[in-house]
């Protein structure tokens, strides 16, 4: 599976996640999914997790609902979620897997000492119930 994403979009995401450090930052990914999945723009949102935001993130149902409505209005698809792993590798955790939904691309970016590092993307395989890595182009 490939995931095309514009450099300018990745830069914007990285800037947001650097600003969120040492907490986890998160946001939405929008684009098109005809044949090849392409992320055309992103939108940062609030980490609404109460408690340890350095190790967890949560997006409020209200913010999610607005993201869906925005995608419908703009005639794009809501294709996934990005979030950071502060001072931790860009690998999905058991927690990430337990709350994953099908279809979505989950971009994870490692932020080490305030600087963005490895970038990975994952999609849930519904049969194996495991993440499969996407190739970011």
């Amino acid at each position: 599976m490939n995931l095309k994403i514009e450099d300018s979009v990745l830069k914007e995401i990285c800037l947001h996640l650097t600003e969120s450090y040492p907490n986890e930052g998160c946001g939405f990914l929008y684009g098109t999914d005809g044949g090849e999945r392409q992320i055309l723009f992103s939108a940062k949102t609030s980490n609404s997790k109460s408690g340890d935001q350095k190790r967890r993130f949560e997006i409020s149902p209200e913010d999610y609902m607005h993201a869906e409505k925005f995608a419908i209005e703009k005639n794009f698809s809501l294709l996934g979620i990005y979030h950071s792993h502060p001072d931790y590798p860009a690998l999905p955790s058991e927690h990430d897997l337990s709350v994953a939904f099908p279809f979505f691309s989950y971009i994870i970016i490692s932020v080490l000492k305030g600087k963005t590092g490895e970038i990975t993307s994952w999609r849930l395989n519904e049969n194996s119930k495991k993440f499969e890595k996407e190739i970011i182009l």
Partner: protein
Amino acid sequence: MAKIIIPTPLRKFTGNNAFLETNGKTIGKAIYGITETFPEIKQHLYDKDGKLRSFVRVFLGDTDVRTLSGELTEVGPTDTISIIPAIAGGIKG
């Protein structure tokens, strides 16, 4: 008829429909009605005990039905129901 907004990750189970219409008079009947037409979506909405999964929220308009009467909340013909997957994650397992 009331309208149900299907979240993007579950649209593949509803024939890629973003919206469905329902005659269900309560939230519970409206949501369960989706599974009668599209059985494959059931595992993503309900747990083994037949209860709505904890990772799934339902809003009537802009209000979480848990703050109303839950699945017994009445639905009017012009209402919009949103199914919302809980989005979370992070480092700790």
